[in-house]
């Protein structure tokens, strides 16, 4: 056992949190893109839900927020021993909104960094489907949207990886079984085998393979957007557990 490989994690890793503090502008931009890929929807939806801001205001605040992480080195004050990254980011959003109230009309739109290209209409569409949370659920809202955003990003990476390897059937099985909200009830493996022209054994193997890959991609995304191994482990349990803590 001791001599076996240690699993899927390399001993060293690229950390978006570290990279955001880099002196190299290209590295900081890469870090910003990675953090934003996971957090922009939670941030945008949170501003809309908690503060009731208009879509236009929420878009400005979202751009301002991510720019501040890199341009004004907001992440320099982050200490993973004191809080989870998502807790820290949420408190940064709260502070930003409070400042924007105070400095109304003087909102900085991203400073010296090029604005992120974000599909706000998608986030608006999702808000329309889920509805805004009730006041007593606002505290959980950011966490739940973080889980949704990270897994959705992982699903897209899985889809791209399957397409690149010519394994569209693998993703099709996964999509039908785990993603689609079929009515009524879940399809059986035999249903899927018939519908997709596969054997039941293929369906079983493809589904196991897709889920394994989804787990790997999700944890890799999480690995890159946490600042320490300890935080990574705690967040992994939140991500893959039944309820975000």
């Amino acid at each position, binding site marked *: 056992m001791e001599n076996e490989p240690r699993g899927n*994690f390399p001993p060293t890793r690229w950390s978006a949190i570290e990279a955001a503090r880099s002196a190299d502008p290209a590295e900081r931009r890469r870090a910003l893109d990675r953090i934003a890929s996971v957090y922009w929807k939670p941030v945008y939806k949170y501003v809309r839900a908690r503060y009731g801001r208009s879509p236009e205001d929420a878009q400005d605040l979202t751009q301002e927020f991510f720019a501040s992480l890199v341009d004004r080195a907001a992440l320099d004050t982050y200490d993973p021993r004191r809080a989870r990254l998502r807790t820290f980011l949420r408190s940064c959003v709260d502070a930003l909104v409070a400042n924007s109230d105070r400095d109304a009309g003087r909102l900085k739109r991203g400073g010296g960094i090029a604005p992120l290209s974000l599909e706000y209409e*998608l986030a608006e569409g999702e808000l329309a489907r889920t509805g805004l949370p009730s006041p007593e659920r606002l505290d959980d809202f950011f966490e739940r949207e973080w889980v949704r955003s990270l897994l*959705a990003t992982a699903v897209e990476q899985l889809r791209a990886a399957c397409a690149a390897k010519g394994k569209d059937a693998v993703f099709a099985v996964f999509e039908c079984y785990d993603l689609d909200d079929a009515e009524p009830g879940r399809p059986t493996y035999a249903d899927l085998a018939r519908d997709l022209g596969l054997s039941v054994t293929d369906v079983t193997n493809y589904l196991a*393979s897709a889920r394994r890959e*989804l787990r790997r991609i999700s944890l890799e995304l999480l690995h890159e957007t946490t600042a320490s*191994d300890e935080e990574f482990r705690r967040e*992994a349990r939140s991500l893959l557990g039944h309820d975000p803590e």
Partner: protein
Amino acid sequence: MSWLSDDALARLRSAASAPDLSGTRYRLIGEVGRGGMCTVFLADDPVLERRVALKVLDVPDTDGDLALRLAREAKILARLEHPGIAPVHDVGRLPDGRVFYAMQYVEGPRLDAFAATTRNLLDRLRVFQRIVEAVAFAHDRGILHRDLKPENVMVGPFGQVLVMDWGLAKALAGDEQRASPSSTPAGPHTGHGAVLGTPGYMSPEQARGEVSRLDVRSDVYALGAILRFLLKSDDVPRPLLAVCAQAMADDRDDRYPGALALNADVTRWLNGQRVDAYPESLLQKASRLYTRHKAAVWLIVTYLVVRGSILFFSRR
């Protein structure tokens, strides 16, 4: 970008956390419990046609240390063949990289749930003694449990009592080779200063992180805390409270020297004998002897009364 409904989100989280059993002999049935680093699943073993519990490491293992710990736990369990300790059947790595081991699936409530439904003091004490026997066996094999508490004891439907969760177990000083010849007995997680255990059941020295000083008396403290838990809702006899107090003495030199000594005192109380932990007054000693030999005492008293009456009336 995919839209994930709340239902799809729940399915994905469940799918990504479920163990990937493809390529193994096991078939997943469901999740049965979660611990600090691991999740326990119920699975079917179609080869031997039995159900097993799979303990799977479910937090990312960035440096390989957690996998070593789980493998070490399995090896410790494999050496503790005792009716009070669930046996290990298999150990390995899943296709997704997670380490697991398979062990006996134990049905039945945990000790805390058992205590909530069992009012009878003697029934509780019998279960307690089975726990102490299993721990004493582990001590004899050079292993400390270090996390004994009601949540880590299962009580089966036929009276089986199993001490579970040996994840913090440690080889006693001088017993490393006997306990686990092929593993590192005191890795970084067991070094001085690491506070591991459960408040309320941890000995003072364990709570202070004096890991290298721990010996069997630290587990004796936890056993005392379990006994106190089992006595909580009863009108507790003073000698049993004294047993708890001695097992849980702050200074380990004041505790029972081992689990068997603790068990012996409980047995003495069950047999109506004097308990070492409880110095008796003359009156208490007389009361205990009366309770223990009630029938004989009444027989003698009756005999004396009858004999006295005969003497009294024969002289009139």
